[in-house]
């Protein structure tokens, strides 16, 4: 009979020691990315992507083993931003492989998150971040004119989105289950493939994009960008009467340009990666316990980063000639909104886990205090309690990790121009339409039937 309390005390003591050890280990892991992000955020905000890229490379180890994925995502993002597409491909490919490996959860590591905090587990990435990896891989290949490889990424996205969709019930609301912008871009890439099979895939992608904008993205206040409708008509007219009629029913008053006319032109697509995605901040709640003490609960919440640039306009001016082609950019992908909704969807689960963990820690400290007091006297009990409370306070940290070098939103614009040599640029404006900056996109020699995809990034 006597053995049980003794074992209980020992067990409690061991648990306290384990918690102390894990806290120290966990904290050493947490400090890494937070320290790195002080500089990374600053350089990113300044738009100094070269410096940011070098900094991330030099501080790879500071991210910590558990945050290897974040390192790969940041490195890939900055490599992409400075036009180092081969490096971006290498980073994102490794990131994709790691996400796949991290699907297997280590039970021992997962148990640690119930004892210390969520930072004790490796960062696995969110579903939308996993899709973004393929999006940036596809764009990197497209920038290298490796369209077949870009199309591999398009197919992977198709398969991945279908798998994500299957996780949710048919009527489940507010979940990232479809990505119309990624579908639109994949449609553009399929069109670049030019075979009839590619055009068939493009049509399916555009239709899925349209359905997504009509249903899923309404909650973000984002409707379909103009190029989607143009492209859908063009591809549907190739597919056949039934497909064209289907699109015409959706846009009865739209006067579309025939595919034959499009073929005489060159199409310039430009993506504007604007702003900085919201970052997670810690919300701390101090809760009184029944015995008059207090415990700390820490939860993550997203905080938006206000940006100066609210829109942009695309310009293409022929080198010989003065007829300028102009088109507005429209929001296609509200990354910030998706990220915030994603966290909101998990909020209850995070709350429940945090409360359960803190309660367990609190009870363990109480038991350790009692057993230390019984064995070594009141002072020992008090010391155990103070140490335990301190451990709870230090160990309770919200998981603030996310792919924070993503843009807040991606805007898209398209101009169709006759063959020739063009100077292309974008003019960025604030929300009230005031000019902020001009971004040169270079001069291009364009042939009939060409489709080019360019991008630029602003973080102001």
């Amino acid at each position, binding site marked *: 009979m006597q053995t049980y309390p003794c074992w209980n005390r020992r067990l409690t003591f061991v648990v306290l020691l384990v918690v102390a050890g894990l806290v120290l280990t966990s904290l050493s892991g947490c400090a890494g990315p937070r320290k790195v992000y002080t500089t990374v955020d600053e350089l990113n905000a300044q738009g100094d992507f070269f410096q940011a890229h070098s900094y991330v490379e030099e501080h790879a180890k500071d991210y910590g083993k558990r945050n290897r994925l974040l390192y790969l995502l940041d490195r890939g993002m900055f490599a992409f931003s400075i036009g180092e597409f081969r490096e971006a491909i290498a980073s994102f490919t490794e990131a994709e492989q790691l996400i796949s490996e991290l699907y297997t959860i280590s039970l021992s590591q997962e148990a640690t998150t119930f004892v210390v905090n969520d930072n004790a587990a490796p960062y696995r990435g969110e579903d939308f971040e996993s899709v973004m990896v393929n999006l940036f891989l596809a764009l990197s290949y497209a920038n290298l004119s490796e369209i077949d490889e870009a199309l*591999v990424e398009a197919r992977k996205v198709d398969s991945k989105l279908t798998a994500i969709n299957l996780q949710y019930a048919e009527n489940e609301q507010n979940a990232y289950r479809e990505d119309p912008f990624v579908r639109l871009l994949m449609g553009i890439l399929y069109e670049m493939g030019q075979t009839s*099979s590619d055009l068939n895939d493009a049509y399916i992608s555009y239709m899925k994009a349209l359905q997504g904008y009509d249903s899923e993205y309404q909650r973000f206040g984002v409707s379909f960008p103009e190029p989607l409708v143009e492209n859908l008509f063009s591809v549907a007219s190739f597919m056949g009467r039934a497909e064209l009629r289907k699109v015409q029913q959706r846009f009865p008053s739209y006067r579309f340009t025939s595919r034959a006319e499009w073929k005489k032109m060159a199409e310039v697509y430009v993506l504007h990666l604007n702003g900085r995605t919201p970052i997670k901040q810690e919300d701390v709640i101090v809760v009184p316990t029944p015995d008059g003490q207090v415990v700390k609960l820490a939860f993550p919440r997203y905080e938006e980063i206000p940006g100066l640039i609210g829109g942009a306009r695309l310009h293409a001016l022929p080198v010989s000639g003065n007829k300028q082609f102009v088109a507005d950019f429209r929001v296609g992908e509200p990354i910030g909104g998706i990220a915030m909704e994603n966290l909101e969807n998990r909020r209850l689960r995070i709350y429940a886990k945090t409360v359960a963990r803190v309660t367990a820690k609190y009870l363990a400290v109480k038991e350790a205090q009692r057993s230390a007091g019984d064995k070594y006297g009141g002072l020992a009990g008090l010391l155990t309690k103070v140490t335990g409370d301190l451990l709870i306070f230090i160990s309770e940290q919200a998981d603030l990790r996310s792919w924070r070098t993503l843009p807040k939103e991606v805007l898209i614009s398209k101009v169709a121009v006759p063959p020739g040599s063009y100077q292309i640029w974008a003019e960025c404006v604030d929300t009230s339409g005031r000019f902020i900056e001009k971004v040169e996109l270079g001069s291009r020699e364009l042939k009939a039937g060409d489709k080019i995809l360019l991008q630029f990034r602003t973080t102001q």
Partner: protein
Amino acid sequence: MNGSWLHKKLVVLVLVLLVAACAGPSVKRTEVDETIDLSGKWNDTDSRLVAEEMILDCLERPWLQRFEASNRGKPPAVIVGTVKNRSHEHINTQVFIKDLERALINSGRVAFVASKDERVEIREEKADQQYGFTSRETQKSISAEVGADYMLQGSINTIKDEIKGKYVILYQVNLELIELETHLKKWIGQKEIKKYVKRSRFTF
């Protein structure tokens, strides 16, 4: 005595752990044709087996006998064109093309024309022979190339059925032999490989 014995055991244990910790990657030589599936993706074995089986099928079809009959037993000249990757994976189709070429040449039943890129280099070499540095007896003629009678083209396609943590993938390789003179398709071959790849959800 007991303490010393325990001490020795502990030292041995520590040494064993140290050796285990210091051990580098283990390397084992394997036969080139041994099947090793690690990730479940398209690999060298798939490429080789598909190429061999499809070429075998191709050479057993009537087009070959018909050609030989109408050309006094002369073997047809074949060239491998493009094999397009239309799959969910970044497949190096050059490896597959080389496997096809190897299977075709080793069959001994067809003559094989060098590829487009290879011909460019060979033409440069022959052009260089014409500058007078090469003896007349060993000089090669610049207009004696054999034109291909048939071109082999194809694609690698996949159908992937995926849910989180597992997927079934069907690789479908399509090859077509097209007569250059007439553009008639003389043979169509198809080979499929299906794989089920599963990743466990939990580990210790």
